């Protein structure tokens, strides 16, 4: 029974252990004790989180004068990190929403962890602008609420306020989508648990799910609707993030290519991060039969496509700078490639334009170590992309007397490390306490490319 019979397609789940086998493989990681690899990873992540916590406390007590910003370069490390983390989040929505609309069955093994990654990445992104406010305890002033100042409202014309609504909506909708997707699996955990706290805990979380077909029918419609809403949402979020720059009058920022360029860059960096995370997860949690080499290959192919779109955007920016005939615009780009931050620019080009082309080779796509290294290279490249856009455009002001350089302080670096600590701590807690793979959806693709009749 259930042998691999299709000549054209390979099964998505490489080992056939039946429906109960899937539940056992995935849910045992929640029910049992984690292995040594998990503890080691958690220790590293939690240490980084502690570093970040110390740095954030220090800079909130002392103000953002602890950063390396100056009168000319008013945005640098923090906004780079903000855009970097928001971008990371976008692959999660792409996998859970867009691939669902495109009926890509391979997404079933990875959508849950990718969605979790989205939620955690958006949390990491939020840290930076909130600290940058200088008085983070007044962060609620970003929202329009009736107040004691005679109904003074927020300025809805500002792209920075659009960000508040875009990121806020994105976070809420992603978290709801993620939770709704988890309910059937939480019910499974409830039914597998013996009496006691665990059963009660999952009973509360699973909302009385009983697997009724009438509920499933509506549930699938709901997931499609949420996917349909999340797809334009994710495009709008990074479009609005790019508006922070594109609606300004800074040479190098004021371009109409920014929205599509940022969205593709976000998907590119997000998929790189999904690869980094899942290569660790499949090893630590023994999910090799679920997150297979075929999944890794598919994601590598997405990296080739989005990497080439990003490369095209780099070229287009240069062409338009020349074609515009605007000397300030031209200088901004020549300065990027040859000025004092040229090293950052060429790091970006090497990582984002050249490295994805290694994925043309099947030998590299199927080599987990190579893919892991290249995924980190792309992460680095995409971080530098945001750094280059932000810092090189600012550091040469209109007035040469205002020209300045920027370098991060220890506090800024520690905060960045801390954001990684937060991200990985949350992710590791997630794969420990919640089903990291969508059990119900994986069951529905178990027989894919397999003959099921005896």
């Amino acid at each position, binding site marked *: 029974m259930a042998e691999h019979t299709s000549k054209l397609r390979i099964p998505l789940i490489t080992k056939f252990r*039946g429906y*109960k086998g899937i*539940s056992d493989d995935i849910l045992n990681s929640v029910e049992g004790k984690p292995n040594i690899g998990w503890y080691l990873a958690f220790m590293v992540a939690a240490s980084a989180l502690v570093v970040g916590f110390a740095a954030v406390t220090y800079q909130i007590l002392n103000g953002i004068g602890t950063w390396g910003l100056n009168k000319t370069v008013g945005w640098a490390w923090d906004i780079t990190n903000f855009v970097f983390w928001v971008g990371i989040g976008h692959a999660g929505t792409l996998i859970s929403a867009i691939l669902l609309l495109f009926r890509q069955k391979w997404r079933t093994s990875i959508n849950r962890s990718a969605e979790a990654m989205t939620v955690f990445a958006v949390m990491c992104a939020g840290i930076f602008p909130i600290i940058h406010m200088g008085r983070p305890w007044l962060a609620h002033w970003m929202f*329009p609420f009736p107040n004691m100042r005679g*109904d*003074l*409202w*927020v*300025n*809805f*014309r500002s792209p920075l306020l*659009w960000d508040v*609504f*875009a990121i806020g*909506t994105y976070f*809420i*909708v992603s978290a*709801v*989508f993620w939770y*709704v997707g988890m*309910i*059937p699996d939480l*019910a499974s955990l*409830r*039914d*597998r648990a013996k009496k006691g706290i665990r059963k009660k805990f999952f*009973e*509360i*979380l*699973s*909302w*009385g*799910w*009983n*697997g*009724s*077909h*009438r*509920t*499933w*029918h*509506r*549930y*699938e*419609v*709901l997931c499609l*609707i*949420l996917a349909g*809403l*999340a797809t*334009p*949402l994710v495009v*709008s979020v990074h479009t*609005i993030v790019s*508006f922070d720059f594109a609606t300004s009058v800074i040479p190098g920022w004021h371009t109409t290519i920014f929205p599509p360029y940022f969205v593709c860059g976000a998907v590119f960096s997000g998929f790189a991060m999904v690869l980094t995370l899942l290569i660790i997860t499949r090893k630590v949690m023994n999910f090799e039969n679920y997150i297979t080499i075929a999944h890794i290959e598919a994601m590598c192919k997405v990296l080739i496509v989005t990497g080439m779109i990003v490369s095209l955007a780099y070229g287009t920016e240069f062409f338009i700078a020349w074609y515009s005939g605007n000397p300030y615009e031209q200088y901004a780009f020549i300065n990027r490639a040859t000025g004092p931050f040229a090293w950052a620019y060429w790091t970006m080009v090497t990582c984002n334009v050249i490295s994805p082309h290694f994925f043309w080779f099947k030998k590299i796509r199927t080599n987990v170590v190579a893919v892991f290294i290249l995924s980190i290279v792309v992460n680095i490249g995409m971080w530098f992309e945001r750094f280059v856009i932000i810092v090189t455009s600012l550091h040469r002001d209109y007035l040469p007397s205002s020209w300045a350089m920027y370098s991060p302080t220890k506090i800024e670096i520690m905060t960045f490390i801390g954001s990684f600590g937060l991200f990985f701590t949350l992710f590791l807690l997630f794969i420990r306490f919640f089903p990291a793979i969508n059990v*119900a*959806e994986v*069951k529905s693709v178990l027989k894919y490319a397999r003959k*099921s*009749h005896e």
Partner: protein
Amino acid sequence: MSNKNFLLGIFEDEEHLVNASKELKDKKIPIFDVYTPFPLHGLDDLLDIKRSRLPYITFIGGIIGLSVGLWFQIWTSKVSWPLNVGGKPFNSFTAFIPVAFEITVLFGALITVAAFFFRTRLFPGKAGDIPDIKITEDAFVLAVELKSSAIDPDLVSSIFSTHKAKEIKTKRGMK
């Protein structure tokens, strides 16, 4: 709690359940519901399930979000406290579109999710009213309601067993 009686056929393979459902449909025996660990396709007609109306709710939710988003921005900027920002018009309509879009998506999504949980009667902490403990793992359950004498339990049982039901049992008071 209802006092309805149900005859449950528990299957190990979803295809057997689908076949049994087809036969029940042929014999004009109404199926109460099917309980499965993952969504089965091709059962909607057999269970006489109509197309879900959730998309309409989403549309209404989106329209409400769009209206609220636009109205609130125009009201705060033009009526409540008109503030001159760089000489821009008080009603800077085009600048209000991004936020209005986000509120549209937010309302559309949240209202749809709320409608889903309301319609399926799921809420936090509700005890799972499951026909069989294995239902969320690897059991596929077909439930037929034994309404008065119109349905012959023996006939239903025989249909279940010809389609390789692992277990056949009666259950009372399932919602």
